[in-house]
């Protein structure tokens, strides 16, 4: 595959190829200029934080093989209130990383279209620019899809401590919420009662057993009442054994 990156001497010397190269370079430079010096009114189209934007599909020869872009590292992520979901996979050929602050173009090799034997007639820089602008404007006003719910505290330990099962996370969050809402008298507890429960695929609690007492019978009983009140739980992805640690809110 690395052969695709190796320029062919004969092609570089080709006049048609040089013309194509010139147009491509001009297009990229124009793109940079436009995105860097856009009027403020349009500045909101670009997220203030670094984002990956698929800007344009630069025309390439029909017969051109898929070009693999050198792995470009995005700038370090900044904390955002709502992390964007990863962009859907697309047959993207070229990507342009738009930094927060206008910076000179990186000196590293750009994804220049690979030399080919035959090339389609290239568009002029103006045409490219117009097309590019249109595409950017079409893309950006689209509201970002809501980020998937972030996993809650790592309370689901599947397959042993330290293993977090993201697929169980929504169910775990529901269980936590249901039991918490049903637990009255948690203020009686100083310790942490632990229960082992068999949950069937419908969420029914078939066997509630106190695995470890809090040391206070009334605390244990309040926790057991919470579990019985929570029966049935929301249906889990599969029948399972559940270990529940019921912790009192820090209090006196």
């Amino acid at each position: 595959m690395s052969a695709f990156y190796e320029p062919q001497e004969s092609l570089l010397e080709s006049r048609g190829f040089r013309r194509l190269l010139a147009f491509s370079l001009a297009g990229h430079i124009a793109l940079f200029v436009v995105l860097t010096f856009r009027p403020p009114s349009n500045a909101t189209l670009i997220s203030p934080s670094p984002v990956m934007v698929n800007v344009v599909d630069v025309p390439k020869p029909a017969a051109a093989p898929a070009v693999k872009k050198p792995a470009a590292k995005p700038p370090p992520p900044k904390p955002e209130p709502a992390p964007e979901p990863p962009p859907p996979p697309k047959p993207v050929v070229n990507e342009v990383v738009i930094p927060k602050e206008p910076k000179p173009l990186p000196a590293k090799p750009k994804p220049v279209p690979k030399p080919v034997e035959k090339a389609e007639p290239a568009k002029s820089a103006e045409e490219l620019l117009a097309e590019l602008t249109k595409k950017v404007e079409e893309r950006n006003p689209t509201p970002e899809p809501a980020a998937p719910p972030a996993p809650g505290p790592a309370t689901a330990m599947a397959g042993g401590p330290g293993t977090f099962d993201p697929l169980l996370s929504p169910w775990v969050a529901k269980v936590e919420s249901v039991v918490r809402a049903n637990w009255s008298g948690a203020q009686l507890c100083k310790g942490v009662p632990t229960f082992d429960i068999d949950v069937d695929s419908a969420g029914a609690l078939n066997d509630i057993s106190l695995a470890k007492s809090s040391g206070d019978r009334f605390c244990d009983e309040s926790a057991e009442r919470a579990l019985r009140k929570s029966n049935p739980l929301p249906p889990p992805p599969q029948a399972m054994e559940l270990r529940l640690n019921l912790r009192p809110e820090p209090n006196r």
Partner: protein
Amino acid sequence: MKRFAIFVLLLVAFAAPARADRVEINVTGSQRPIPVAVQRFSADTANPGLSEEFYQALVAGLDFASVIIHVNPEAFVESKVTRDFESPAVPCENWRAIGAEGLVQGELRVVQTKLQVRFRVWDTSRCRLLGEVGFRERDRGELAPLARVVADDIVERFTGRRGVSSTEIGFVSDNGRRNKEIWVMEADGSGKRRVTNNGSINLFPAWSPDGQTLLYTSFKGGKSELFLLHRGNRPGVRLINTPDEKYRGVWVPQNGTIAAVVARQGNTDIYTVSRNGTDPKRVTESRAIETSPSFSPDGRKMAFVSDRSGSPQVWIRDMDTGEERRLTFSGAYNVSPAWSPTGEWIAYAAQAGNNFDIYLINPEGSFTTPLVTHPRTDEDPAWSPDGRKLAFSSNRRGRKEIYRVDVDGRNVILLTDGSGNCTNPTWSSWLE
């Protein structure tokens, strides 16, 4: 190509759903009271309002505990009144359906002119009988006190600790005048009555462990002395008849003696005496001022205030070994220690600017937390016998008044009516 294949394999491995057949979940509970349904007790008396009056006093007593809340009867699927008390069958599912985790049902009867109550307490979650009890009023017309005793019993069946709605709080009030008298009220603030009437200055009331006697300091003889005041019509008695000034007496748990502050030959120390006032023993021997004794539940340790370090601080003395250690180090003025009946905490008043706040500190001194902090003064903490509440005095509304608060700092409730400056609360134990 090989690298790409490895990458794809790894991707698939991580993306595949993990098969989990055992999951561990942590649930953190909140401060939610236990919902208990209370049916109005059946009554075979000619007084139609008896059942309703008893019910109102009972649910007020339950809610007083903060850890239990009664379910609104309008939500009941079953009858609001106990029917056929002799038949203990209970459709638990119908009580669970309205969110009740407990059920109280009972009956009232008048036996030989006195009210008698029998009741059952159910855990509807497990459909288990927690107990069946009967009580009878001591004197006629004590319906509300009887209902509070029932409420406190119910609280114990769900929490392991008896409720305190049937207890009383003693306090000092000037009632808008120059003299200060000892007063007593129910723990909910009702039934206030003056129990001393000597026109002098009476301070620092302290209930005996059995709740039958009040120890207090009075200037009625011209100097500060200790007196006992008994329930019933027995007159108050002077405790220690010596020339020394004596004040702020407290009861030592377990051994029945009394500790008090005695000013002798210009030195103020803590002494113990028998409850007859005999056999005085000096406890602290520092040349500094020692005052405000308060004992651990087993009576083997005493918290007190001493200025031997340069400012008033709380100290702890081991009554067996005589070893003393300083407990409070934060703040320049920490006074009025009160050891909780559970032994877990010592409440004290800490100076904050020109005012005082009440803090809790564990007996080891490793953890301190504010209980009530108000821009004005909160002071004189006194524990309820179950260790779940405290009474204190505060001038947050201008005059000093008595409040109560849960041990977690919630539910600050005013108990007095602002008719005078009220201070020095003392919370009684249960009356047998």
